[in-house]
């Protein structure tokens, strides 16, 4: 019987490498004793990037804080699919108040803990892109400005998925949503100025800002852990593909998240006190079409005719990101 040698080539999710690493270096998700912050039985769609992202983030945060964690959740898919009364998927202390106030509620939790002398307990606020970059943005900015001891995590799936895929301030240009239909002379979402939430967070000068995706759980876990090493306001922006809203296959969630980073449309980096300190390099930049083509929300760019003009503008955005963060330069870790 011929020996089939397996070559462990560490790439992407590092998933294969987990059990070969020493226990301390292993991913939180490889630990059978992990919290499972969102446990099984919730009602997320197949391939939900947000469910994946939230579990990675909260399990990592639970490990980083020794289980001393309170979570505040904005209204949205994550809240709805996890807590259909009388059931709950949450195995952490968890509060849902409203759509637009999660950062302020998290501030209130942090203030109470401080007043009670329980600053050993840490606070995470979390929401989707709607709750973060749109309706909750005022509260988020206030929380940043005061430097409240809260890590706010945005699970960005680039539209209002909970209500049926309407456009949000995080919806990329040309994407089809229920309110930016792929009809008319300029199908899909308009090319606006965009709202780069991580950079706006950085402009507040808060201790820590990072971006990540569900394609690289070890990087995501590292950033949660790193965020928890700071006191004050921190922000983590996680790209979480949504099969329903993006019109993609459930199995492609992780692949699409990876392609988003490899084409340059979603740069992955860390910033401290307003300055970028590290960016995840792209080994080989892929054209944006690789990322766009598997998603039905961009199908109108390929059929009935190839919209090279629109694709060109999207490619230009990706190229600008690559240049801005030096994603193709050597020497970055």
């Amino acid at each position, binding site marked *: 019987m011929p020996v089939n040698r397996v070559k462990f080539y560490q790439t992407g999710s590092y998933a294969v490498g987990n059990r070969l690493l020493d226990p301390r270096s292993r991913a939180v998700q490889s630990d059978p004793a992990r919290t499972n912050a969102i446990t099984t039985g919730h009602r997320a769609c197949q391939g939900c990037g947000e469910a994946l992202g939230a579990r990675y983030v909260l399990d990592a945060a639970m490990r980083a804080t020794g*289980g*001393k*964690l*309170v979570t*505040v*959740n904005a209204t949205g898919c994550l*809240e*709805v699919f996890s*807590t*259909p*009364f*009388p059931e*709950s998927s*949450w*195995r*952490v*202390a*968890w*509060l*849902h*108040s*409203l759509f*637009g*106030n999660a950062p*302020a*509620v*998290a*501030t*209130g*939790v*942090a*203030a*109470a*803990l*401080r*007043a*009670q002398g329980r600053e050993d*307990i840490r606070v995470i606020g979390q929401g989707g892109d709607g709750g973060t970059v749109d309706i909750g943005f*005022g*509260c988020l*900015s*206030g929380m940043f*400005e*005061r430097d409240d001891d809260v890590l706010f995590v945005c699970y960005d799936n680039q539209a209002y998925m909970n209500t049926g895929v309407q456009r949000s301030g995080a919806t990329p240009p040309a994407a089809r949503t229920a309110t930016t239909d792929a009809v008319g002379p300029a199908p899909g979402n308009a090319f606006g100025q965009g709202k780069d939430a991580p950079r706006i967070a950085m402009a507040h000068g808060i201790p820590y800002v990072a971006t990540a995706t569900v394609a690289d759980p070890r990087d995501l876990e590292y950033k949660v852990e790193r965020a928890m090493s700071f006191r004050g306001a921190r922000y983590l922006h996680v790209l979480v593909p949504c099969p329903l809203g993006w019109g993609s296959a459930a199995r492609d969630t992780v692949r699409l998240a990876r392609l988003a980073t490899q084409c340059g449309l979603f740069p992955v980096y860390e910033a401290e006190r307003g300055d970028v300190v590290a960016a995840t390099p792209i080994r080989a930049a892929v054209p944006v079409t690789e990322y766009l083509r598997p998603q039905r929300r961009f199908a109108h760019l390929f059929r009935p005719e190839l919209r090279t003009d629109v694709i060109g503008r999207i490619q230009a955005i990706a190229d600008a990101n690559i240049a801005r963060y030096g994603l193709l330069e050597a020497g970055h870790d």
Partner: protein
Amino acid sequence: MTEQIEGSKAVARAVAACRPRVVCAYPISPQTHIVESLSTLVRTGVLPGCEFVNVESEFAAMSVAIGASATGARAYTATASQGLLFMAEALFNAAGLGLPIVMTVANRALGAPINIWNDHSDAMSQRDSGWIQLYAESNQAATDLHVQAFRLAEEMSLPVMVCMDGFVLTHACEPVEVPTVEQVGGYLPAFVPRQRLDPDAPVTIGAMVGPEAFTEVRYLAHRTHLDALSRIPALGEEFARGFGRPGMSLLAPYQADAETVVVALGSILGTLKDTVDGLCADGVSVGVLGLTAYRPFPGAALCAALRGARRVVVLDRALAPGVGGVVAADVDTALRGTRTPRYDVVAGLGGRPVTRASLDAMLRAAARDALDPVTFLDLDTDLLAGAAGHG
């Protein structure tokens, strides 16, 4: 010992004596002096162990209070007018979550037209938010109501709004006996939340509830409010025993066994009492029935108190356009089945002074049953004629 003190400062000191752990504030006239005073009390250590959070909006103020209360901290904020509307979504949320937040509403009109002066439009607009609403007649009452509000809130696991007339009370300097920390300590026990965010015993708070249980959840909220109807006077009596002055009650009658009884709430009660004294001296039988609790609405007690009245005048400091007064509708519900004529007087909107002379004339007309069903007190017909000319 009474002090000659501004209402806002007295309230701030009473709140501080209740030892809140989190106070959050966004400035709006005429609430500002309250939160300014609290900020100083925290910074000078008079109110120790308290986080004072300057937030970016009223929506955030209520949200911070929600987070703090859910974490087991006694939480307080104050607002008025547009600010109350801006936190409306969070008000319903705080009530639904059963969080015993206490908030001062320095009552002020709602725009447009923008108007910073006193009426009850703001609090009345939130009458169905699930908050208990208590109205202060004087600054002594406003001060004492805050202490009782924390006790009531925490006992019922419900948020309580203490409504005090903006400027008329908040900016008035009058004698007040401010409760001390020691006095309050004997009345208000440490806050023991019904449930709280605790990593050692994690709970899910704020789950989604569907059609199969939502009605039951709302029914329970209704029942809790009805329970508060008996707790308000009981806690008021306990307050009176501890503090040596009257505590809260559902109703505040003043010569209310008269032929004509005026139902009103807030600081206008004082001017009404002076007016009624003058009328009685002239042989006109008029009395006053003050409402301290507006939510829950003490309908049965009100109906009983008005049993002997030949007519009832409801003096509303807010307007439901197309209807008339707001409180009048509640009084109608309470008087269901009786034949007592009820007059609706809308007065003092947007800070229009309600004078003794105007009240006197209106009540004399009421006593003759010569009042329109809905009367706007001191309506300036010249101004209306001018407006009509421009229409």
